[in-house]
Every structure is written in C-alpha cells, then in structure tokens.
C-alpha cells in the first residue's frame, strides 16, 4: 500500500530562516504529488503540486518543492519564512487506483517566531 512519511513533526523557526520539510512516499509507479497547508482556523488549501515535467515546482507564497524520483522524495522549501507561514503542512500522494484519492503524511506543524 502507498504511504507518505513526513520526517519533521514540529518545526520551530525564527523569521527569515530557511525552511525545508521532508516528504518521502512509497510507490514505484507514476505519482502525482501535493503539498497542502492548513493555517490556524482555516481550510486545507493547496500549496503546490507536481504532475509531470520540471521536477522543481513553485507554489503560492514563495514555496517550492523538488521531486526527486530516485529518492522517492518531494521536499518543501522556502528560503525565508514569515510569521504568517505558521501552519500545519501536509504532503500527499494520489492513490494508484485511478480515483485521485489522496494519501497524506502525518503533517508537520511549523511555528515561526517573530
């Protein structure tokens, strides 16, 4: 079965620090990969996605992620975080059953100190 692993459960950074959140998935076939963000009190919303093409994808609010097929990884990065980036971040991969269902990682809580 597919699974997604996020290595960092709780990250605390100061403003302007660089961010990298790890995500690894287990599936040998073609995958679609996603990062979702949930700001306090808000809905889950899409940060960025990878379907094909350039493995370096850019999302909203200055976030980017790199798909490394050989490492089964899709790490999220941001060069300089802001206090407003405080949120929970979820990596997800679509299921292999052609339904588009998402398999989520456990999530990473990011706390940015002003």
């Amino acid at each position, binding site marked *: 079965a597919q699974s997604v692993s996020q290595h960092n459960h709780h990250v605390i950074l100061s403003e302007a620090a660089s961010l990298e959140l790890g995500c690894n998935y287990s599936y040998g076939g073609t995958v679609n990969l996603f990062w979702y963000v949930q700001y306090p009190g808000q809905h*889950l919303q899409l940060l960025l996605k990878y379907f094909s093409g350039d493995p370096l994808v850019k999302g909203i609010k200055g976030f980017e992620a790199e798909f490394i097929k050989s490492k089964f990884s899709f790490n999220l990065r941001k060069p300089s975080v802001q206090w407003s980036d405080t949120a929970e971040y979820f990596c997800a991969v679509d299921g292999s059953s052609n339904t588009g269902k*998402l398999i989520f990682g456990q999530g990473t809580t990011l706390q940015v100190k002003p």
Partner: protein
Amino acid sequence: GAGVSQSPSNKVTEKGKDVELRCDPISGHTALYWYRQSLGQGLEFLIYFQGNSAPDKSGLPSDRFSAERTGGSVSTLTIQRTQQEDSAVYLCASSLEGTSGAYEQYFGPGTRLTVT
C-alpha cells in the same frame, strides 16, 4: 464562486446515536471525497464518488459508515451507532474529476464530530 460547504460545523452526539454529515461540493465538480482527520491517525481517505457512484469505498472503517451522493452534487456521510473513536473532523473535498488525480481537490471547512 462558492467553495465546498459542510454542515453542521460541529456535532456533539451521545455514543450509540446515528449522525449525518452533509457536503455541498463546488458546482460542476464531478468528483467528491470524504476524509477524516483525527489526532492519532492524521488525514485518512474514507470514500470517493464519481458522479453518484462510489467506485472506491476502501477507506470506510466499518459497516457503521455509509455515504451517498444524489444528483451528482450533495453528499451525506452517515455514521450509525457512533463510538467514541469516531470523534474526528470529517472533511469533504471536490474536484473537477477524479480518475486521473490530476485535478486539485478543494476542501471544505469540515465537521467536528464529538462522541460523548
């Protein structure tokens, strides 16, 4: 346009009672998904609808859980004889279509279910 809406936003029920959770997807979205978000289990897939049919029910945790979708739009998730372990936030998402996985899923605000 309007996003995915869910009702109620909060539901407190006694153990053993039945509950119904409602999801209104974005107009025109043929794919609809239910997920559950709980402290111990994270975000789990429950069921997927394409139109009114549910080709993937693999995430439903027991036969106490069922869902239907009518008119290719509104969906209802029903939990019978609720148990305390059913306490969670139930999220609904919709997308233009689901078969390719290539469309963004838009999530609703969720229904927080508490079973006492």
